[in-house]
């Protein structure tokens, strides 16, 4: 598929990387020749240097032949304008990054309609949502949801002294007798899609997929169910912080926000009257101690500096804060922080790339069973996909145990008429279902439900 990406910043580069790996033909437009040079050195894409609002630039990028145009420059208004022009010039679908809360809060739907936008993406909101989900389920270090949160997938670390050490998956299922599935295990740098004889070890990262209620039951049985965070301290009055604070306040959580910039503090105090806003430098431990970091349930570091977020999060961990989450944008730093023992790391650009990649896949085959949602797990080595089953799917009404699935592919869940469950061998797939597939992302690319079959 021919895709144009306008804006080669952080988000742009992440999109280029993931979409290029998907095998799309990409043209990148950016105003800055240096950015263009850098991108053309690293990625196998076509580069056009120029202003994306300019007709000639878009013409040079052959916008009329593009199936998808994604505008991720740093200005919302320019993004929307570019998408509007591109649509008029013949791009089939347009995606704009719109992150200003003023647009998103109110009539985004209408604006989308006026401008004929196919999708708007809001990295900050997505990151905030991810953090919110983690805070709601304190045992998990990561949580992804499918089908409007009916079905979820949580990532856990098997810490020292867990009951699961040395247990194989069949025993596990017998012992807890709940409808759940351990779908992915990461041990060291290796990632496995485990079968029944797989034996768990301390230190493994595991992904559990199950109905949301079952997950909570299971966590209780495992003794991992902790209380939901009742008070949260957020460092950095950023856009992500705004979205997160709003969600938390709505769910009845106490929120403390710390920022060193007085103007931002004033703005936030105006917009979020329920939150406690502190004007102080979060890098100073004294400030954090004074505001009671030791007694808070969760600490979230959302400043614009990755390094600051990582270091301050380590400090919070050392103060025994139960949940510490850091926003880290750069992949290398995130991997390092994880190795050093930081539990939860959230990256807005990863969230965006998940959304856009799944959207592109769904566009790519407008027929057959579409990809509804897609998540990349364990640093992108595993994908979790949600498909709609259409009536022309060939292997309907065949028990799963008789289905010829590809290697390293797993059907982790079926959602049928709002009921979500983990299937067993006798279950069948029927048209109208939504099914969750876990697959190692290797050479094969899952575009269609038929791709899971041999």
């Amino acid at each position: 598929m021919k895709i144009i990406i306008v804006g080669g910043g952080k988000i742009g580069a992440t999109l280029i990387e993931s979409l290029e790996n998907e095998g799309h033909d990409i043209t990148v437009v950016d105003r800055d020749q240096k950015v263009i040079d850098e991108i053309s050195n690293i990625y196998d894409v076509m580069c056009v240097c120029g202003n994306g609002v300019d007709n000639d630039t878009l013409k040079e990028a052959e916008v009329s032949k593009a199936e998808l145009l994604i505008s991720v420059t740093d200005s919302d208004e320019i993004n929307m304008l570019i998408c509007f022009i591109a649509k008029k010039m013949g791009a089939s679908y347009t995606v704009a990054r719109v992150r200003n809360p003023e647009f998103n809060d109110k009539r985004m739907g209408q604006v989308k309609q006026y401008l004929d936008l196919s999708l708007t993406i809001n990295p900050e909101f997505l990151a905030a949502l991810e953090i919110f989900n983690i805070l709601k389920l304190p045992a998990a270090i990561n949580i992804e949801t499918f089908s409007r949160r009916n079905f979820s997938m949580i990532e856990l670390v098997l810490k020292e002294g867990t009951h699961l050490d040395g247990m194989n998956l069949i025993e596990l299922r017998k012992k807890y007798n709940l409808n759940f599935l351990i779908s992915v295990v990461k041990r060291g740098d290796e990632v496995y899609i485990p079968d029944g004889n797989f034996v768990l070890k301390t230190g493994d990262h595991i992904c559990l997929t199950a109905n949301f209620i079952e997950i909570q039951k299971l966590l209780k049985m495992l003794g991992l169910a902790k209380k939901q965070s009742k008070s949260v301290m957020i460092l950095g009055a950023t856009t992500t912080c705004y979205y997160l604070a709003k969600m938390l306040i709505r769910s009845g959580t106490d929120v403390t926000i710390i920022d060193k910039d007085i103007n931002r503090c004033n703005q936030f105090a105006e917009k979020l009257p329920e939150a406690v806003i502190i004007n102080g430098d979060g890098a100073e431990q004294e400030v954090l101690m004074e505001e009671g970091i030791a007694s808070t349930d969760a600490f979230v570091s959302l400043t614009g500096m990755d390094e600051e977020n990582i270091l301050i999060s380590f400090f919070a961990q050392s103060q025994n804060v139960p949940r510490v989450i850091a926003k880290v944008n750069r992949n290398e730093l995130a991997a390092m922080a994880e190795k050093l023992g930081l539990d939860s790391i959230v990256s807005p650009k990863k969230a965006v790339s998940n959304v856009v990649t799944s959207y592109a896949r769904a566009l790519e085959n407008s027929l057959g069973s579409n990809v509804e949602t897609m998540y990349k797990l364990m640093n992108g080595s595993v994908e979790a996909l949600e498909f709609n089953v259409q009536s022309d799917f060939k292997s309907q009404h065949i028990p799963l145990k008789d289905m010829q699935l590809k290697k390293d592919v797993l059907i982790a869940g079926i959602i049928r008429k709002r009921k979500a469950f983990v299937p067993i061998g006798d279950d069948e797939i029927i048209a109208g279902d939504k099914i969750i597939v876990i697959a190692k992302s290797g050479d094969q690319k899952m575009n269609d439900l038929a791709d899971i079959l041999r």
Partner: protein
Amino acid sequence: MNKRMVLKTAGRIMQIISLLLLIPAIVAIIYAEVKQLFAFCITALCAFLVGLAIVKFTRTKNRVIYAKDGFAITALAWIIMAAIGAVPFVIAGDIKSYVDAVFETVSGFTTTGASILTNVEAMSRSMLFWRSFTHWIGGMGVLVFVMAIIPNFTDRSIHIMRAEMPGPIIGKLVPRVKDTAKILYLIYIFLTVLQTALLLAGGMPLFDSLVHTFGTAGTGGFGIKADSIASYSPYCQWIIAIFMLIFGVNFNIYYLLLLRRIRTALKSSELWCYISIVLVSVAVITANVAPIYKNFSTALRNSTFQVASIISTTGFATADFDLWPGLCKAILLLLMFCGACAGSTAGGLKVSRVVMLFKSVTKEIRRMLHPRSIGKVHFEGKSVEDSTLSSVSTYFVIYMICFFMVFLLIAFEPFGFESNFSAVAACFNNIGPGFSAVGPTASYAGYTDFSKIILSFAMLLGRLEIFPIVVFLSPRTWIKKK
């Protein structure tokens, strides 16, 4: 430095070259040349096995290459090609000394067309074919070919493409390097077939048409007759002259034409400069040589042919331009340095560089008159980045330095200033024949082995535009810092 990746590419190149050697082997079968057939097959077999072993036993964990790896890969590939391609000549006995064979092969791959053969017509058919076929391979570049056919050859293959394709700026035609390489080769093959067909239609035998088309397509210039093209009909001469000019045009323009974006294609200022240089040169030379020839059409044909041959850095000849008046020779010498468009198969400085150099000189002069003026150089309808301009000037400087170093190294040869100077110019700019002792009717056979090696080196420098070879030879590329 990703040495494994460099090594693996070397292995792949060996395999590719061994496959390419099978094509002249077929010619050897057709003409029943047993010794030559044996030479091609044994060389191909050895190269293939060594290449296979290297590819098999080199584990490349990290397939990412950076700019310097791209340069090193390209330089190494070309050196290997020349070393292997020369072997059949020696085994079959068509060329006795290996140094001579290497000179001939480098001259072939770099599309120079300078020859050490004193009697071309005595060569066997298959060797003549191979010699010209190297032009065709070298014209568009082997690594570009490799990228077009091998899937996932490397990540960041743009570095290799940049190192191998001539010109100051490499524009991709389509997002992926692989697809770009494919399109370039398809255009190249189409033009080759077209020219062969036209020559056949003009009554040239198939073997001759193929050989001359290869020479034209790669802008090489190896012929199979002592007097190059002169003995063929005027029609064939015109066809070859026109195609030499066609292969000197940036291939991106043909792609634009294919997409029917004719207006964009015709906007190219490099193309117009190229055409005007050709027209002016032809006009002046025709006027100058008209008295020598009987009628105007012969004068026009000969001058057009020679201008096309020199500016596209091909090196075919229909007249001994060594006997022409001084003005003509001066113009031809200037054209040698100018070369054709970037992104074509031609050598030389390239028209785009020359234009940019002139424009930046104008800018500097204006700055002397108005010290506070801010000037931007415009080219192809866009303002040129300062970094591009400085790299163009740097290239020009290093080009001159290399040129004079080579000139100095071969200065001890007893042929006099004009021969030596034009020999270096002809080799460095990948043309072939120079003036006087290395003129279109003479050959490089008189030079010593040492000079032949130096000149071969100059041809490689010229074809790869200097930097890859410099990077490849600099110890810092290879030695790990402690």
